[in-house]
């Protein structure tokens, strides 16, 4: 408690710094000065970097065309030329988009912490709670191994079970990397559909689980834990937030770029070599079982969005139906075996199965809906 009051006082001073409490006033001032300097540096670096970004982005297509047809002298319409032009354009484009968006999301996320999400959702009624939880799931930083502590934290703070699930579904499902890839490769309509339906599945499946009143199917130890004390929240300065954005880029883009490029390479191959309409028979709209099969295959699969979306894009181009493809992608991202194994520590088998069933069903419906209306 003592620490908490200290921190509050510290934050009240105009320049709050970081979570490192207990630093003397002198070091506090030094830190504040260093942060002002850092902010200035970021601003000075940021403007040219942004200009460079837009410059690069605008010359991507002509450059890809020029390299393929002029520099390498390949014939227009050739299979290899098609694949290469596709790769040379889409690869850098997606990486550029990814960097900018991940940076932005990194900054936005610095405003949200798990502790704040918990406080915000505690005692919420269903419906409003489900909607809010699904939205918070997008912006709250969350790694899958935090699922259990987070789950316990939410439940012990009085967040209804269904609302907690809305959060747990939306957090991995609506993923910024997936969003960028969908936008970059397939345009804003598909990206928007993914965002809207992802949120909808999270809200509705959380609400359904809440209606089923399965609170008794939590493992015993969860209920025995007392509501954790509220830990002091970490207040960041703007320099700290920009730093968080940079860290997110290093972390996410740094780790996913090989997957993105590999995915786009496979996509480029499909684009150049697979005949038009080839996928229509297997993953097309008329194959009624395809959505079911897509979800069935997708659930136990564990891949990141970065590798799978470029492939999915190419399949779509060759006649696969959007609903089928969307359902496949969602089941791969939202329901993964490793996460279930972790969640089994807090959920009894029946609740775990209900969770998989309800979310799987939601994704299935989304798949059929899109195949029907598009």
């Amino acid at each position, binding site marked *: 408690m003592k*620490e908490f009051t200290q921190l509050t006082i510290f934050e009240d001073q105009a320049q709050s710094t970081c979570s*490192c409490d207990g630093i003397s006033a002198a070091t506090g001032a030094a830190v504040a000065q260093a942060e002002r300097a850092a902010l200035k540096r970021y601003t000075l670096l940021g403007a040219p970097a942004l200009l460079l970004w837009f410059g690069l982005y605008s010359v991507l297509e002509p450059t890809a065309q020029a390299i393929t047809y002029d520099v390498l002298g390949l014939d227009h319409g050739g299979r290899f030329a098609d694949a290469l032009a596709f790769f040379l354009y889409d690869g850098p484009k997606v990486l550029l988009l990814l960097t900018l968006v991940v940076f932005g999301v990194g900054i936005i996320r610095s405003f949200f912490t798990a502790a704040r999400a918990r406080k915000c959702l505690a005692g919420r009624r269903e419906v409003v709670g489900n909607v809010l939880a699904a939205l918070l799931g997008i912006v709250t930083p969350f790694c899958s191994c935090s699922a*259990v502590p987070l789950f316990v934290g939410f439940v012990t703070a009085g967040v209804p079970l269904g609302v907690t699930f809305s959060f747990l579904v939306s957090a991995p499902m609506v993923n910024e990397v997936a969003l960028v890839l969908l936008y970059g490769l397939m345009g804003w309509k598909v990206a928007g559909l993914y965002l809207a339906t992802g949120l909808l599945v999270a809200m509705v499946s959380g609400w359904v689980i809440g209606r089923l009143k399965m609170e008794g199917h939590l493992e015993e*130890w969860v209920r025995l*834990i007392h509501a*954790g004390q*509220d830990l002091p929240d*970490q207040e960041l300065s703007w320099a700290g937030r920009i730093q968080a954005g940079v860290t997110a880029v290093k972390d996410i883009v740094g780790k996913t770029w090989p997957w993105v490029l590999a995915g786009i390479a496979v996509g480029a191959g499909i684009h150049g070599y697979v005949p038009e309409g080839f996928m229509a028979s297997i993953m097309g709209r008329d194959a009624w079982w395809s959505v079911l099969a897509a979800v069935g295959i997708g659930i136990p699969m564990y891949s990141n969005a970065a590798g799978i979306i470029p492939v999915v894009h190419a399949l779509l181009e060759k006649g696969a139906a959007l609903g089928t493809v969307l359902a496949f992608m969602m089941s791969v991202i939202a329901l993964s075996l490793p996460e279930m194994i972790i969640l089994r520590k*807090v959920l009894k088998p029946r609740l775990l199965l209900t969770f998989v069933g309800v979310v799987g069903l939601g994704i299935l419906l989304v798949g059929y809906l899109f195949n029907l209306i598009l």
Partner: protein
Amino acid sequence: MEIKVLGPGCPKCHEAEKIVREVVAETGVDASVVKVSDFQQIAQMGVFATPAVAVNGEVKCVGKVPTKAEIAAWINR
């Protein structure tokens, strides 16, 4: 001094443990570093995002890998 690194064992948790050990070694502080990966224990400490670091039972940071400067500030008191 007892420093606990709370985390089930994802890459970020390992990174947090590594960096804490580094700072302890660099500063020469007499501290034991313990890794806690049991969910029950983690939850009991009121932590619901990992990695988290606690010094002498006081939770100092939650849901991120702390920087060296932050860790140094916690243990140099």
